[in-house]
């Protein structure tokens, strides 16, 4: 694997070549996440509807406690200066604010899709695993959407 960084890396691209041996670990973590998405029911269209209709606190409790635990962990990692298992310093790249337009417009477009499909990207894959195979069509359509964004990107406000 080359260690030369490509000219145009995604923002959260890795900053160092990872050994191929680590890939099964990400697969296992993905399995855990698929189980969590299923057992928490956050992948359910019904739960998303209930959330956007403000008819149950459940989704808000889940999101708030997830953010709280993640924020506390990130603060702890920074405070203690923890390193990765391979000894690299842990760094979270800051997102570029720019005009903020991409976050407001892109976020709203995603929100429309989130409520219509009742699923964000993680749940789309977990739903296919759960036997809602028609979500393969939703994933294909999401790929088309991402591709069109890449095509239009130079002409869109960011």
């Amino acid at each position, binding site marked *: 694997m080359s260690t030369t960084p490509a000219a145009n890396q995604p923002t959260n691209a890795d900053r160092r070549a990872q050994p191929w041996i680590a890939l099964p670990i990400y697969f296992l973590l993905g399995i855990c996440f698929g189980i969590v998405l299923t057992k928490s029911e956050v992948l359910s269209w019904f739960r998303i509807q209930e959330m956007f209709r403000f008819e149950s606190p459940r989704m808000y409790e889940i999101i708030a406690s997830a953010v709280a635990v993640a924020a506390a962990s*990130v603060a702890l990692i920074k405070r203690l200066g923890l390193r990765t298992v391979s000894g690299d310093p842990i760094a979270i790249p*800051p997102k570029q604010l720019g005009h903020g337009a991409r976050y407001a417009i892109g*976020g709203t477009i995603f929100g429309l899709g989130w*409520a219509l499909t009742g699923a964000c990207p993680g749940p789309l894959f977990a739903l296919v*695993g759960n036997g809602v195979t028609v979500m393969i069509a939703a994933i294909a359509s999401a790929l088309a959407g991402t591709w069109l964004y890449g095509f239009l990107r130079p002409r869109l406000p960011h």
Partner: protein
Amino acid sequence: MASFVAAPWPWYVAGPAIGLFVPTLLVVGNRLFGVSSSLRHFCSAILPGRIEYFCYDWRQAGLWNLMFVAGILAGGCLASHWGAVQTVAISEQTKLALAGLGLHDFSGLAPRELFSWSALLSLRGFVSVVVGGFLVGFGTAYAGGCTSGHAISGLADLQLPSLIAVVGFFAGGLIATHFLLPLFL
């Protein structure tokens, strides 16, 4: 234990379990928890064209994320075998509202009247699956993240761009739920 595995988890188990993916991925390999970038890596691998956005080394940048996503699919499959969700216990109010929109089948994870191959050719099935999926893919790429990348990872790191994105997620979701759904359901 068996009933815990079979039953849906309470929020105070589910939420923290989701949150723990952020430090775990950071410690394992300095990876920022997020799913939507997998869509970009797929495009880069399959059909990069000559589009600058897709011209990068997707193996180095994104193979971990594609493995993670393959795991999500496998995890969903595993979980469905230990006590498949019969009916999601949503509130009566939500059921009434959805019945008012013409939905009658509340079994499963998503209404079969919208999310099945046979419904795909109806207007409401097409909008729910194909139009919704397209907006998810376009919107997350434009915003540079989805619920995991912005709402969980970004907010946990107190990033302003992620807060703007999350406000957008809810603005879009509320518009779709309260104004668009009644138009086509």
